[in-house]
């Protein structure tokens, strides 16, 4: 066994040391695997970033109520009576002014994407002070909060970055009325950073929504109180709303789009991997052919076929791993942290950042190693079966 390990170590070291003799062909394999890994990681980072932005947004102890069957905030409508009835329900946390409840409007306005200079939907959320208090990680990072009852708005940092004309102090026209940007807010990378916020009363009035809302958020005593609230909602025929935790709502919103990205990314990555595999097989068969006399000489000396097999396989795996490493570094340098926007569940733009993680890099490394393994195993078999008499032939 010790001898076998020594043989394998020697053959692996020889094969790796001889790589410069086949530099261009080896580099082509490394490059092909690097491209596969970089493209796959770009898709995975996109899905991961979108998932983290949207799914990470919701709290477990905040319930969101919408019209029955509404898939997203934009499809919902609630009347004030329903909001009042629900606010009287069980399990809702209270402060000195009563139940902590935020009835909100969610309307769509136009924005111009900086990247493409095209129009896209942006959400303008109308909310009250209670709604802002419910969002504990809200930070005004520039300017100030809007004044209730005015045409002032604050802009999320993601929307500011991706869309034209939302800089502090800029005047905008929505619903035939003028609005002024008075602040920029961040929310720890969450989906709300893609939104514009204004006073609920001003949005209701200027968008002619009367006394209606689209959603209501209710702060719960604890996550378990959601079931009591749901039971209360089911029992009252005037309500019959869809109620779920904010965390579940955003997870549902995220899953469709991130699944789409994943289901596009993996097949594309695997299709490209077949191309890289062909390159790896070609490189390794050439490697075995060009080293045939060396392999046969080792066999003549007494090295076993296993050492020749493992040595060739290891060379292929090293090339693939090197490609994977370069691909991962390229993906990290070019994609990690870049900001993009796409259509979210409410037909509005969600701004998110590509996010690489060790788990994703591991997945890509596994794909690279699979390419290396399959690309090496057949040539390695050929190396192990090479007739020893080849050692006696002329070069």
């Amino acid at each position: 066994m010790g001898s076998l390990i020594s043989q394998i170590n020697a053959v692996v070291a020889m094969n790796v040391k001889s790589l410069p003799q086949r530099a261009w062909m080896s580099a082509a394999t490394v490059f092909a695997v690097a491209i596969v890994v970089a493209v796959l990681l770009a898709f995975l980072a996109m899905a991961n970033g979108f998932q983290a932005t949207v799914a990470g947004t919701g709290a477990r102890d905040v319930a969101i109520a919408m019209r029955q069957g509404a898939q997203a905030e934009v499809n919902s409508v609630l009347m004030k009576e329903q909001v009042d009835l629900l606010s009287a329900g069980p399990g809702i946390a209270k402060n000195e002014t009563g139940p902590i409840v935020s009835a909100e409007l969610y309307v769509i306005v136009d924005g111009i994407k900086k990247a493409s200079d095209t129009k896209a939907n942006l959400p303008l959320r109308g909310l009250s002070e209670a709604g802002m208090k419910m969002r504990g990680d809200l930070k005004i990072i520039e300017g100030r909060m809007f004044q209730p009852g005015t045409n002032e708005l604050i802009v999320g940092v993601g929307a500011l970055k991706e869309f034209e004309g939302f800089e502090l102090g800029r005047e905008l026209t929505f619903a035939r009325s003028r609005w002024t940007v008075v602040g920029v807010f961040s929310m720890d990378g969450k989906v709300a950073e893609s939104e514009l916020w204004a006073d609920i009363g001003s949005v209701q009035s200027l968008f002619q929504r009367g006394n209606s809302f689209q959603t209501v958020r209710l702060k719960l005593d604890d996550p378990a109180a959601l079931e009591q609230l749901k039971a209360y909602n089911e029992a009252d025929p005037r309500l019959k709303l869809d109620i779920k935790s904010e965390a579940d709502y955003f997870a549902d919103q995220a899953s469709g789009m991130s699944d789409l990205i994943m289901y596009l990314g993996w097949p594309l990555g695997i299709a490209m991997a077949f191309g890289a595999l062909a390159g790896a097989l070609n490189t390794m068969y050439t490697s075995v052919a060009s080293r045939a006399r060396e392999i046969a000489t080792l066999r003549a000396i007494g090295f076993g076929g296993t050492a020749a097999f493992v040595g060739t396989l290891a060379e292929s795996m090293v090339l693939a791993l090197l490609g994977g490493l370069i691909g991962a570094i390229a993906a990290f340098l070019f994609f990690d942290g870049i900001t993009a926007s796409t259509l979210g569940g409410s037909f509005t733009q969600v701004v998110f950042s590509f996010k690489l993680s060790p788990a994703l890099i591991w997945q890509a490394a596994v794909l690279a190693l699979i390419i290396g393994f399959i690309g090496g195993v057949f040539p390695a078999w050929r190396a192990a079966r090479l007739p020893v008499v080849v050692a006696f032939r002329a070069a």
Partner: protein
Amino acid sequence: MTENLFELKKVSKSFVKAKETISIFEGLDMTIKAGDFIAIMGPSGSGKTTLLNLLGGVDQPTSGEIHFDGKRIDNLSENGLAAWRAANVGFIFQFYNLMPMLSAAKNVELPLLLTGLGRSRRKASVEAALKLVGLDDRAGHLPKEMSGGQQQRVAIARAIVSDPKLMLCDEPTGDLDRATADEILKMLQLLNREFGKTIVMVTHDPEAAKYAKKTLHLDKGEFVKEELMA
């Protein structure tokens, strides 16, 4: 040790090429005594290299038996033959067959990796082998940094480092000029006379054959002449 190191009994070897069976040997008998230095000569296609391959266990006969040191080897498995070669045979090739990416010392060390010896004992054996062939000062050099004669001396060091009983040489001077060839042949002669190595050398060169104790002439798979050297 038996007196006869090798015994070939009714060995036949044939190949199938383009659906045609080509016979190289038919019922060949041969004995090689321990301590012999035999040159095998003959025209191309006479079976010299095939015989060397059979003796070295890199090829197997179609029929017949090959005994080495009293033990039958023609029926060993591929791995069994590899282990037998590692323990008993040192090969010297016409084109040296050194690993181009390894230094002289690392090339010489290769057979020792099969022995289970520790690093320090391997190092000592490599140094001794290189010293014997006069290349102890070139231990760190790569093959491409050495002349053909020096590379063949490294190959000889590699062949003897694990102290095999048998050395099989395939045209060991075929790629060298006369003076260097003589130098290599003297070294083989020394290994035979002073260290008791049994050497079988295939060569086209009558001058090279003069260094052997005995020359066997092979033609169409049969020994046609035997010459004993003075």
